[in-house]
């Protein structure tokens, strides 16, 4: 059995993740930040530990500016709805996931100006094209760090510098890269970073968040939800400080216990080490796919400029058939179709039929890649 759907969610997880969650459920269990007894205090320490680990991973100085939520989608919605106002202008790329495109389309219906900068057929972005789209009213640039379809890395650091020069903010969607590629928010001039906890941070589903840099004016930030925070309980207004301003209600503390363990595992393993290993496997996969007659690979087709996510098609076979035959006949699990990113597929020329996507992870092996390549080759051979 081969799990090549890590771009959707990683599997397996390091054993420490499940162990941390079990420990939380069986030994800690109380509501963090709601009471002063020892179990509640211990729960608060666990949640804070998750903030600290995330801040360390992304080079963020203040763990209190790490805001947790259900997933990267919630973090992106929080940032876009929290910071953009009617009359503001926002810029994004044509390689974005619907977690970015859908909230932006909804906002652009409400008098927020939107420019979608076109990318190359390989999914690459020219920073000059983006810079040309900046207006005096541009409040925010939102960019994916890597495409969830082709893995193509976008030039976030260059765009970060441009954002600083033009005194606008950069929000990076790191759902596909957090933990798999090095990210230093300060060096790359990233003001806001949305991350997924359950992909390459190896935490459980239901975890993700937003890291807020110090150029972001917290006083301007409107929460998505308001409610109990365990702080300022005598007031009926939402507290104005982080993280409480943007985190209401009981958090997914058991999930965050797992996330903290996942991030600590990533830090101990080393992002550079994970990246190098996945790059080698990606190179092997790309080389093998390109050698199969009838297979078309999308993206830059260069392991140095993409993540371990690879999209391809087999001439003469629907992607849905490829997916079901890989699963049914050889237990190779992947994702096929449009991957929630119609704009990216239009850019790549694969709309509306989509692609077959292999998403490798930190636990993928060279043997698995070789086996999967043999299976794809056999499928393609069968058509010719």
């Amino acid at each position: 059995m081969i799990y090549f759907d890590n771009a959707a969610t990683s599997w397996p997880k390091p054993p420490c993740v499940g162990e941390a969650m079990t420990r939380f459920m069986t030994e800690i269990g109380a509501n963090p930040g709601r009471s002063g007894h020892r179990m509640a205090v211990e729960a608060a320490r666990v949640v804070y530990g998750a903030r600290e680990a995330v801040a360390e991973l992304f080079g963020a100085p203040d763990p209190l500016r790490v805001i947790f939520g259900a997933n990267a989608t919630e973090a992106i919605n929080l940032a876009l709805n929290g910071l953009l106002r009617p009359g503001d202008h926002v810029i994004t790329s044509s390689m974005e996931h619907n977690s970015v495109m859908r909230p932006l389309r909804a906002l652009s219906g409400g008098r927020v100006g939107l420019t979608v900068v076109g990318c190359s057929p390989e999914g690459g972005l020219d920073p000059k094209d983006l810079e040309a789209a900046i207006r005096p009213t541009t409040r925010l640039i939102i960019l994916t760090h890597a495409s969830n379809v082709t893995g193509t890395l976008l030039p976030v650091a260059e765009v970060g510098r441009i954002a600083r020069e033009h005194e606008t903010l950069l929000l990076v969607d790191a759902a596909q890269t957090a933990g798999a590629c090095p990210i230093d928010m300060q060096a790359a001039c990233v003001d806001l970073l949305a991350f997924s906890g359950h992909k390459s941070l190896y935490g459980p589903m239901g975890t993700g968040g937003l890291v807020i840099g110090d150029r972001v004016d917290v006083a301007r930030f409107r929460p998505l939800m308001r409610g109990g925070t365990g702080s300022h309980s005598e007031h009926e207004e939402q507290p104005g400080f982080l993280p409480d301003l943007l985190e209401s209600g009981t958090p997914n503390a058991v999930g965050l216990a797992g996330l903290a363990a996942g991030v600590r595992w990533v830090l101990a393993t080393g992002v550079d080490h994970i990246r190098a290993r996945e790059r080698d496997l990606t190179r092997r996969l790309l080389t093998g796919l390109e050698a199969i007659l009838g297979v078309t690979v999308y993206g830059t087709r260069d392991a140095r400029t993409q993540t371990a996510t690879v999209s391809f098609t087999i001439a003469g076979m629907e992607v849905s058939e490829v997916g079901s035959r890989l699963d049914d006949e050889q237990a190779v699990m992947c994702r096929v179709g449009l991957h929630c990113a119609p704009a990216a597929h239009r850019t790549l020329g694969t709309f509306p039929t989509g692609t077959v996507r292999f998403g490798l992870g930190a636990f993928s092996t060279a043997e698995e890649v070789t086996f999967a390549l043999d299976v794809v080759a056999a499928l393609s051979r069968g058509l010719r």
Partner: protein
Amino acid sequence: MSGEEYAVILVLSTSHAVRIEKMLAQQGIACKMIPVPRQISSDCGVCVRIPQSQREAASEIVREAGIAIQGIVDV
């Protein structure tokens, strides 16, 4: 009088309390997160208890780190 006399750092949230507690512990200040004493506030939150003798040092560490607090009071 037996034992130590204490002060408490009143914090904005439990997250702030954990941050301050970790920071003070690293600097060798004996501290503990406790429920806010009833005579100070009816809030349901926690505070960080420190020895009164370390009050100035703790205050300085928190200020230098730029962590907002509600105040420090003797208890």
